């Protein structure tokens, strides 16, 4: 990472970044929030089709689900996806497949969704149809429903349509409490570096960092809002949603600016877990400079370190879950 930062390699890091705000385009605001009812639908089905361990015979014929449970939006989405048949008047229509085949498709879809989520890739409905459902498009609704039930019962995950507009699904944990559990295993996340990069930008600027500025910095790492990354996946989602949900960042609209722009601030968890001195050390490492090259920030970091030492003498260095290993 440090090798790529040659062009932004000095204390004018802040200045550079703020210059680029002017020419950068504002980030697109996060996807439309899914109406709460959509979540309920997929998980809360009270009369699920027979559990996955059952033999096929009792499975329901591919009929539309009871409409009180499905919000219109989901139905439309599924229908849109499923309805791309070319029904010709001459054909009587394909025979419904054996229930066992639908069950198998549901299992394939379940794995597909799990793997996509594991790789932090976007679960896109048209991809689901293309890669898994294939010729069973007409029954995709029932397949989807069965998959959701299995995911909920076995994994405790909700397959939720998060954006009707982009037809994206995501797997949401249904269990409480929600924590950053990767940290529970002290996983060496490359996210740490990404997060520190953003936090240090905010710190150096001394105020919120516009989304455009953040992207200019991430560009150095070869990250773009529209490109999926092999490690990070959907970077934009990661920084505007996940890090925010985990309280490492705050992502807020800049007031009185049209068209809308957003900026990042340190989140409460970052304040608790990450010290300014750690940020200075990070900057020093990345830009191969002495931390004192950012004199006022360094002074702040020193003061904070002193305050921390005085507050809790027995703890020599603050331990935190992000950098701990």
């Amino acid at each position: 990472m440090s090798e790529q930062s040659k062009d932004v390699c000095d204390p004018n890091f802040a200045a550079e970044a703020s210059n680029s705000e002017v020419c950068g385009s504002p980030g697109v605001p996060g996807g439309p929030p899914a109406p709460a009812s959509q979540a309920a639908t997929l998980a809360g089905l009270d009369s699920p089709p027979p559990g996955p361990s059952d033999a096929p015979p009792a499975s329901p014929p591919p009929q539309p689900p009871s409409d009180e449970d499905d919000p219109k939006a989901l139905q439309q989405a599924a229908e849109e996806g499923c309805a791309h048949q070319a029904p010709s008047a001459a054909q009587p229509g394909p025979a419904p497949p054996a229930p066992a085949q639908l069950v198998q498709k549901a299992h394939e879809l379940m794995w597909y969704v799990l793997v996509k989520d594991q790789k932090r890739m976007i679960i896109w409905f048209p991809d689901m149809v293309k890669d898994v459902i294939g010729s069973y498009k007409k029954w995709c609704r029932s397949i989807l429903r069965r998959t959701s039930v299995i995911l909920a019962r076995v994994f405790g995950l909700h397959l939720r349509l998060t954006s009707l507009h982009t037809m994206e699904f995501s797997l949401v944990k249904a269990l409480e409490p929600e924590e950053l559990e990767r940290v529970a295993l002290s996983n060496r996340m490359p996210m740490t570096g990404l997060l520190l990069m953003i936090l240090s930008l905010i710190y150096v600027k001394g105020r919120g960092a516009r989304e455009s500025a953040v992207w200019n910095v991430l560009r150095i790492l070869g990250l773009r809002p529209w490109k999926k990354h092999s490690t990070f996946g959907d970077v934009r989602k990661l920084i505007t949603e996940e890090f925010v949900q985990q309280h490492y960042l705050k992502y807020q609209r800049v007031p009185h600016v049209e068209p809308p722009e957003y900026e990042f601030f340190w989140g409460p968890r970052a304040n608790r877990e990450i010290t300014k001195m750690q940020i200075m050390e990070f900057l020093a490492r990345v830009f191969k400079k002495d931390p004192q090259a950012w004199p006022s920030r360094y002074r702040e970091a020193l003061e904070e370190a002193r305050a921390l030492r005085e507050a809790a003498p027995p703890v020599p260095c603050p331990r935190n879950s992000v950098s701990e290993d």
Partner: protein
Amino acid sequence: MFTAKYMHIYSKEDKEQHSFTMQGSTRRTGIMTDVHRRFLQLLMTHGVLEEWDVKRLQKHCYKVHDCNAPVEKLEDFINNINSVLESLYIEIKKGVTEDDGRPIYALVNLATTPISKMASDFAENELDLFRKALELIIDSETGFASSTNILNMVDQLKGKKMRKKEAEQVLQKFVQSRWLTEKEGEFTLHTRAILEMEQHIRETYPDAVKMCNICHSLLIQGQSCETCGIRMHSPCVAKYFKSNAEPRCPNCNDYWPHDIPEVFDPDKDREAGLSKSNRKSLRSRQLL
């Protein structure tokens, strides 16, 4: 009927923990509580985990959901979950790394052929590159295929023409997805890939695959007897010849010519790891 009996298990609310024993078919009586669900979620998130991490994960899940319940023995815990996963054609599989004998666990899909499992993530020519690399690895003496040899296959790939530069990146994609492991410019199968693909590999390359004389499973890397040619995984060698001053080939009784490795000791390994990290600067591990 059949349906109704099992509907009851699945429609009960999650908070309850019901242990359900039935005469004769314990296989279907999976106990799925939030503890198990969270465990599965996290195992899936990580893809592949070492045994020590798995134990910690299990404890973490108990702590979060059910502090008072005794932590079940890992083997039973996993068998319980697997009994539920069976009908979904997935399984928590336990394996052992071929180089240093670490026990690892992964959630694997048993249903489809492994190459098609990767199909939605990789293009046709990328899948073919993997196939070629796999063949080179299986045919090699060491279990490693050199980057050069793999890249030389680019002209033979199906699908869109791939340049060597691209192929290098695709190989890195395989490493990141944990299908391959790289060591000094050479590639071998990641333990996770061996776990998932063993069946497929044995069926597809029945003549070319090597097997371990001790554990009788697929062998990619290992030691071999120079007289009769039988092969053994390094961790299998370690266990078989443990505290044996004069190791001899189990097949032809000739003197075993290789270094006998140490049996993997999880406690020693953790200590070594911890002391290493105290000495190493914490910073260098934070970098991307």
